[in-house]
């Protein structure tokens, strides 16, 4: 269960979130939308516990979290496989990860250091890492940015299959992405 009550967050004199409240039901999919700078990523950081709100409370219990951050936050010197394994509580064999890598088009670069990958490949690695981790709540901050249309469709379908029945909060600019996953949409506006 994830519940935000009357969250306010300011950066200096700029109020980014002003009394935001919402209850994210277990197993629900929620898309958080809004214009640039309206506080979508800030909200995600507050919900994840990375940022403390100036006022208000977040109730999250002891749920295990997983995330695709605004930035990829990958270990650049490690291979794609090692990045995936880093966050897994039980070490999966290479053979067990191959179908997942193939599904998002990363099979050919499984052993490459992340620093050698393109932006889109890094994004897919970050997404796959989040999807393959053990989690109760998944936070996705624009996980499909930088992907071409065809890859995006493939990766979105894969993501939908992997997240069925899980609590997922997706930050996006794109209404089509929100529609694709269904679920509830929360609109944020500039405070």
């Amino acid at each position: 269960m994830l519940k935000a009550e009357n969250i306010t967050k300011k950066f200096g004199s700029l109020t980014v979130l002003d009394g935001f409240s919402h209850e994210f039901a277990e197993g629900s999919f929620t898309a958080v939308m809004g214009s640039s700078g309206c506080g979508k990523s800030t909200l995600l950081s507050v919900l994840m516990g990375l940022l403390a709100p100036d006022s208000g409370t977040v109730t999250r219990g002891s749920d295990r979290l997983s995330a695709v951050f605004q930035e990829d936050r990958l270990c650049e010197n490690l291979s794609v496989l090692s990045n995936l394994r880093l966050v897994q509580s039980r070490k999966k064999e290479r053979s067990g990860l191959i179908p997942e890598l193939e599904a998002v088009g990363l099979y050919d670069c499984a052993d490459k250091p992340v620093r050698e990958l393109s932006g889109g490949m890094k994004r897919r690695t970050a997404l796959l890492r989040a999807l393959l981790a053990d989690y109760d709540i998944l936070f996705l901050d624009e996980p499909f940015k930088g992907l071409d249309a065809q890859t995006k469709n493939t990766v979105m379908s894969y993501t939908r299959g992997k997240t069925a029945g899980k609590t997922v909060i997706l930050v996006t600019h794109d209404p089509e992405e929100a529609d694709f996953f269904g679920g509830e949409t929360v609109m944020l506006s500039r405070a």
Partner: protein
Amino acid sequence: MKKKLITAGAVVFWLAVWQIAAMAVGKSLLLGSPVEVVQRLVRLIPEKTFLPSILFSLGRIMLGFARGTLTGVLFAVLAGKLVFFEKLFAPLISAVKAVPVASFTILALIWISSSELSVLITFLITVPVVYSNVFEGIRSFDRRLTEMADIFRVPPMKRFFGIYLSQIMPYFRSAVKLSVGLCWKSGVAAEVIGTPRGSIGQMLYNSKVYLETADLFAWTLVIIVLSIITEKLVLLLIDITAKRIEKL
């Protein structure tokens, strides 16, 4: 393949330049030719003193390098953890960097025996290089990766090896790559000044005293080869360790 041919071509070109220069000078006392140097090296190898001299210098230079590497890493970790240590080490590291090897060597000869000289000198050469690089690695560590590890609840061991060490390893690698070559240069230079019995430095010194230019070149060639081999071996060890770390 093409790259290797170009490299080989460049080596052949400079050997030819050396040979022509030696022929132009016409006195092996002033400049021995590559052929003479190789002939001298072939005669040196079976000599009784050849291998012991190599082992003497190799052992001491590598000991100083290992001690310096450990100390440099330890200092860098402390400085990365606490600003107090960063400020404390800063003047010391700057001083060690700036003082010429010859000054250290002459001073060290007052304190320690000449046989231990190269250990101390290579230690002093290695510490600032390793310290500066590893400290730079620690400073440039992306703190957002710590947040990522917190969110995914990455256990401490995996966090240390997978996140912290993997970030710092390239800085450590380049420090080691630089240090090994410097250690051979400074270590042998120290031996030439201190002339410990049975060292490569003593052999170089003798070649100067007896005006054996071919010997000087032959021993220099030995030092270059040793420097390249030890550098490759140490880097191989680091790369294997890095791979192991990645699999943890």
